[in-house]
């Protein structure tokens, strides 16, 4: 399955990309995706972010089973 990863806010400064594609095999939990992201971009370990799959926020045990859009969402503090 193909994950269309979209990065927001401070995350973009670490990935240096606003989006990328990842061929993630047959299925993957969000916990596994977090680990993959942190291995790929080590500075992400310090960051706090939530993950939305196909425009729905999901918890870490959620299992992705097919092509989808994945948004990596950090909180913003500014006002």
């Amino acid at each position, binding site marked *: 399955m193909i994950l269309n990863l979209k990065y927001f806010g401070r995350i973009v400064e670490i990935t240096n990309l606003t989006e990328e594609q990842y061929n993630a095999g047959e299925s993957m939990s969000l916990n596994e995706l977090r680990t993959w992201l942190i291995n790929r971009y080590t500075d992400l370990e310090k960051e706090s972010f939530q993950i939305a799959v196909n425009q729905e926020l999901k918890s870490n045990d959620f299992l992705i089973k097919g092509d989808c859009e994945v948004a990596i969402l950090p*909180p913003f503090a500014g006002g």
Partner: protein
Amino acid sequence: MLSKTENSRYNRHIILEEVGMQGQLKLKAAKVLVIGAGGLGCPILQYLTAAGVGTIGIIDFDTVDLSNLQRQILFTSEDVGQNKAVCAAQRLKQLNDDVLFQVYPERLTTANALELFASYDLVVDGTDNFSTRYLVNDAAVLSEKPLVYGSIYKFQGQVSVFNYKKGPTYRCLFPVPPKAGTIKNCSEIGVIGVLPGIIGTQQANEAIKIILEIGKPLSGQLLIYDALQANYMSVGIQRSDEEVQKTIDLKERFTEYNYDLFCGVVTEVENHEVTASEFTEMLNKETVRIIDLREEWEEPQLDGNNVERIIMSDLQIKIDRFKTDKKVVLVCQTGARSNNVRQLLKQAHQLNDIKELKGGMQNYGN
């Protein structure tokens, strides 16, 4: 009933089927608290005032800085140095004098939040740091008020409505605050000036929809706007009873809860204040030195075998007198001078164990 001038002023609302006279009266009856009169606060306040919201509370401790004027559109060059809440209310009165403005030129804290929120129907968050955002969320949950959330980062913004009819809260979206030291604010990273205008205006729109009970408030949805790509994305969010319960569990100890500690802004609770009863115990104690920073004429006088006086103008020449093996307690009239001196001794002289009398002599012995 609306007056004749109100009928004219709000005509474009009144002729809308979805608003009408009833809707305009709802706006007039509404009480909205806006937290922060900065980048988001300015457009929020401007539109709520123009719309004829009857009572608007404005809380901001901060003063206008020249670098704010690039985006904080209620202020002018002449306002630099003035309190933002006071200044915003002055400007907004020129726009619509029908509105009752309650001005709070102070910091929102756990000590004042619940009492403040109780006087309003709806809270709009225009703050600029995580500690206050979690504080605002929890106070809104504990006082059962809907919260219109908005936040910005460089060219992107987030908008949502929390705690609306049992919908999700800020903690359901972001249960864990970012790690300390990783987060900077607008003053350190920059922000495109028009962005808080766009996000704040959307917050004002959500507030007005909630008051009018029309349309679909942005509850259960996080709207993300990207000003560079000119696109919006909406993400569904669920209420987490577990997260909401964390806030409810805070109820009994809310006033003592340290949001800076929770968000890692400070790493330990600084216990540098001495209460009146602790202070009484310390008077005449040989192991303690009490240093009165006040001028000789200031009342009430403080007597004791271990009390000495170092007035502010003598501070630098007598600095060595603070360096002692004994426990040092600073005293002044209100706690302001003692706080300044304590910080100075800590930063410039590495004297980390100095205490001060909480609230100064004004609070002692009365």
